[in-house]
């Protein structure tokens, strides 16, 4: 799952060390439109629905945070 996510992120925005970055949002790596696009990609790739209430900076800061988010919404 982690590899799939990293592949997805690399497609969206290459050149970022997704394995180690933990400030993807606070570090300003993504524009608002990229974040929106990312949400759509995650929903399609992992077949989940991410409620807007989960679209919070802390859920996108790192790959682990995103994986955690996906697990969370899978249970919903």
């Amino acid at each position, binding site marked *: 799952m982690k590899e799939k996510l990293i592949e997805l992120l690399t497609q969206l925005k290459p050149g970022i060390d997704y394995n180690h970055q933990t400030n993807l949002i606070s570090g300003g790596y993504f524009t608002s439109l990229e974040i929106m696009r990312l949400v759509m990609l995650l929903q399609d790739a992992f077949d989940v629905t991410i409620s*807007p209430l989960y*679209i919070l900076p802390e859920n996108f800061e790192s790959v682990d945070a995103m994986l955690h988010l996906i697990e969370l919404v899978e249970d919903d």
Partner: protein
Amino acid sequence: METVIFQFEKMLHKLQQKQVTNKVAFLDATSQVTYQQLYEDALFFAYKIICNTKKNDVVCLLMQRGVPMAMMMLACIYAGTPYVILDDQQPIDRIIKIIKIANPSLIIYDEVNLDKCPSLNAFCSTFFLANKDQTQVDNFSLLARKKQIIATDPLYILFTSGSTGEPKGTVITHHNVCSYIEWFVHCFHLNRKTIFANQTPFYFSMSVSDYYATLLTGATMVIVPKSYFSFPVKLFEMMNEFQVNTIYWVPSVYRLIYQFKLLDYIKPKYLKLALFAGEVMPTKILNDWMDHLPKVQFCNLFGPTETTDICTYFKVNRRFANNEALPIGNACENLEVFLINENHQKITDHSVGELIVKGPFVASGYYHNPSKTKNSFIQNPLQKNYPEVVYRTGDLCYYNENHELMYVSRIDFQIKHLGYRIELGEIETIINANLNIKIGFCIYDKENDNILCFYEGKTEKKELNQYLVSKLPYYMIPKYYIKLNEVKLNQNGKIDRKYYQNYFNELLKEDELK
């Protein structure tokens, strides 16, 4: 005629009478300032500015958007020195381009932008940091400078990107802003109880409306951090926390919230007035907002930087179909607008013509740019009896059957294709009415006489073509469709059309359009 200072002090006096000068004027994610503190800080910095400038010298502000910036703008006003706000996110080359035109006597920066100063040394000799120090303010100098300021003096110079890529600085006077804000405040019943959630950067003309309306009515402006517009839950939480009742945002932000379906989950509880401008609002997005927030008054504002901010407005008073365009309405009170044809005659029927603006919101012209000024700020073509300057917007409009103005496109967007005169905006309205399209726009490839359609959405090229064929005459159907992962916006949040023109040329060269 009055100055902004006069109006601001009149308002401050009212706050003093009601003993509410501790009311918050501006706040952002990390700080806030009351009217009393704002006034004191502005005078302190005004004195520091006066020590380094003559009246009407240009001062550049290289600062982050936030409370200190809002205060520093007021300081410049008190110092009688028109300010230029530099976008600290833009490349240093463009900052230098603007500085070369503005030729400032002083640059004020904050700590975040300290590293940029060495590159700017060659163009300006005096800099100071926007932090308070031990300077002793001399009230006499402050008063002497204040007395010299009159309503026709420049208040600020706002730079926009010209069509050639060279920045143009529009000079706006005290008289422009006082007249404009008088309309804005009356039209929307703004007052001390108004609480804005500011979205637009201070170097963008839309911010003139919420900034000065706040300053001159004693309202409160919540300066929302840019990142909150990526995470709109935070945005709405902040709006509810501070009981925001008025917003004035670009349509892209309305679109973002629409696409996240955020209004299904959380609502801005105190919102009463939702204004938008800067780009065409897709009607399906407005309809969605209206469905979710039936009690909110929505209003479409329209105007260029050269008319301070707005010249026409339309209070949404009826329901529009998704494929209908919204009117831009009628002239603001105390302003006149009319349409002229190619022979500079006034249009009195429903045909398309260029929008001309006349009245006290019209800027003085462009800074250090007599040729561009001469092209756009012209003698009123309808009368030759005495000198009277009007502004040519370069926008094409027509009057609908309700005598409301309808925006068509920029003059440069009006094209002649297969013998027909076509407005790209008309095609765009149809594209954007499609529920599977997130955003779409058209560009005209003049060299090869092709209409190009760029879009982001779930639809495949073929489907979109079929859809357009069913809605538009054959001569308006784009030749090429280019599906994008994400539409690139420029620094003001508008579609970066220049970029896509070049992008298309690249695709054409590489023969990747088949």
